[in-house]
């Protein structure tokens, strides 16, 4: 009963909490939109009961990681299926999560739990051109910009810290972070000061097709 009395105001507050649409856009120093950028807003007051219960997917399709960048909330499980008809040997040397997985065709590997924050760089020891990222954040408010560099959030009122991440962004993380008060602000524009690292995403466009060395 006492538990119920404690939970009731939280439920009440959640139900009546005001929320607002916040639009974020990311552009480079030449004012061109930057897509596929992870944007995440961490509330100043830590949230309760926000543990994710969904298993995310990092697939291997046509000897590429799909998606190229997967953003997840801390303590999310990620499954690594193999949609190719050939074997993969996925690994990460990143401190955030060090692992290796033998992904036989038509065999499911158990999902992995990602409990530390930051970047996990993925490679395949059989197909050296494969490169993927898992970015782990400590908030339920995150997403990736679309091709026009835009992303829209529906955020409850409150104070947040906004951060962005992309493997080609060279700007310091702190220089791009913003403090945000909802509902006072509704449009955030992030302009990168440094040039992006070279775009080598053409590796994704044409990949190996046949099972032997190519």
């Amino acid at each position, binding site marked *: 009963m006492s538990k119920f009395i404690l939970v009731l105001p939280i439920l009440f507050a959640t139900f009546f909490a005001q929320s607002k649409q916040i639009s974020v856009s990311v552009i480079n120093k030449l004012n061109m939109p930057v897509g596929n950028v992870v944007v995440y807003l961490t509330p100043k007051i830590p949230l309760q009961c926000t543990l994710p219960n969904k298993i995310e997917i990092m697939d291997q399709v046509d000897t590429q990681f799909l998606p190229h960048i997967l953003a997840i909330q801390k303590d999310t499980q990620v499954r690594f299926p193999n949609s190719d008809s050939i074997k993969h040997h996925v690994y990460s040397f990143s401190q955030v999560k060090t692992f290796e997985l*033998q992904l*036989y065709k038509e065999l499911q590997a158990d999902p992995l739990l990602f409990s530390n924050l930051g970047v996990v760089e993925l490679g395949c020891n059989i197909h*050296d*051109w494969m490169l993927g990222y898992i970015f782990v954040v400590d908030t339920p408010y995150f997403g990736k910009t679309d091709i026009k560099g835009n992303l829209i959030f529906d955020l409850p009122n409150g104070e947040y810290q906004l951060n962005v991440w992309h493997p080609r962004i060279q700007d310091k993380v702190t220089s791009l972070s913003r403090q945000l008060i909802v509902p006072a602000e509704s449009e955030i524009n992030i302009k990168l000061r440094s040039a992006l690292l070279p775009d*080598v995403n053409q590796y994704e466009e*044409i990949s190996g097709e*046949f*099972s032997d060395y*190519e």
Partner: protein
Amino acid sequence: MNKTLTSSLAPQSKTLQLLFLSLLLISTKGLAVEVKGLVQLNFVKASEQSSWFEEGTGILAYSKDGANVQQALLQLSDTFSNGLSYDVVANYYQLGEQNLGISQAQISYKPLSSAKLRWRARVGFFYPKLSLENVDTGWLSPFTYTQSAVNSWVGEELRTAGLEVTLFSPGRTRNSPISWEFHGSVFKANDPLGTVISWRGFAMHDRQSLNNDRVPFAPYPSVIGEDRIFHPNYVEPYHELDGNLGFYLGAHVEYYKQSTLRYYYYDNQADPLEVSHERLYAWRTKFHSLALQHKFDGNTRVLGQWLSGSSVMGNRFVYINFDAWYLMLSHKHKAHRISLRFDKFKVREDDVFPWDQNNSDGHGVTLAWRYDLNKNWQVGVEQHINKNSADIRATLGENIQVDQNQSLAVLQYRW
């Protein structure tokens, strides 16, 4: 009595337990072994000129119209977390002398690394990676059934029984579109390499020689005569005759996954004076190989290879210079793949016996259409035509110049 029985049974039951555990381990482990297989059944409308398999002088594989098992292979492989892997390809061939055997068997070591500069190595019985044509399971071509003259020869006479070490740098780790690899190998065996192109000349087919195989050819009088070269009318290409180590060096450069260049220099360092009790010679064979591929997009590619080298046996009893190249265009539309290849090849002699004629040359066109019905089944048809000449045919009373045609309809199943 019971006690005695129990104690005498105990070691047996322990052995059984151990056996059971081992079997369990093998079967559990067995789940992880990757097994790939491929079978091709064909119906062929053959050329009138009978093939070297029938001791004829034709340069195409089939001598009679009819149905055949064109390819049947099983590939077993596994990769372990310590970076070790193995890969074995076992084949059945209806054509040829050895019908069942191994075409490749290798153990590779590729340590897990995220470094910009990496290395790997392999030992066993394998192909140098000089071909951009033979990229399907079991070194088959996914483009045409009848392979280029260059790689038909590689498949029938060349195999590395040795060690290859590779230094490589994947471009993506350096944020660069350029990836590169350097390969160096030392090997034993493969001393008779060059025999078959010296006498029969280049051919076009998909018959890879197996581990103890024998490649026959026509009984040319200048070859088999006891008062002539006195060599059998076959070659067993993987013998070690002189104890010398051969070597090759290779370099691959790749722009994204779009354009690829591969250069190899191969020298078996054989002693041409060495001869076996079977009267097989060691042939000093050296060549350069340059292969190129460019993918215009995910569906259309152009590829080609040029091979140029020389081979000598005995005290310049046979000395040949050889050149062969092909150019191929391949286009994929949904589940259809259509490939068109032009081949040109030439062997020229410069040796001491005028009665042993080694000059041969020719060119050919191969057009193939292959259609994937689903991920297991594929059907295809191919038309091949060539015009070729070999001076040595005159020693058998045959015309030097021959035109050959071959039509194939192929049903393929892979798993």
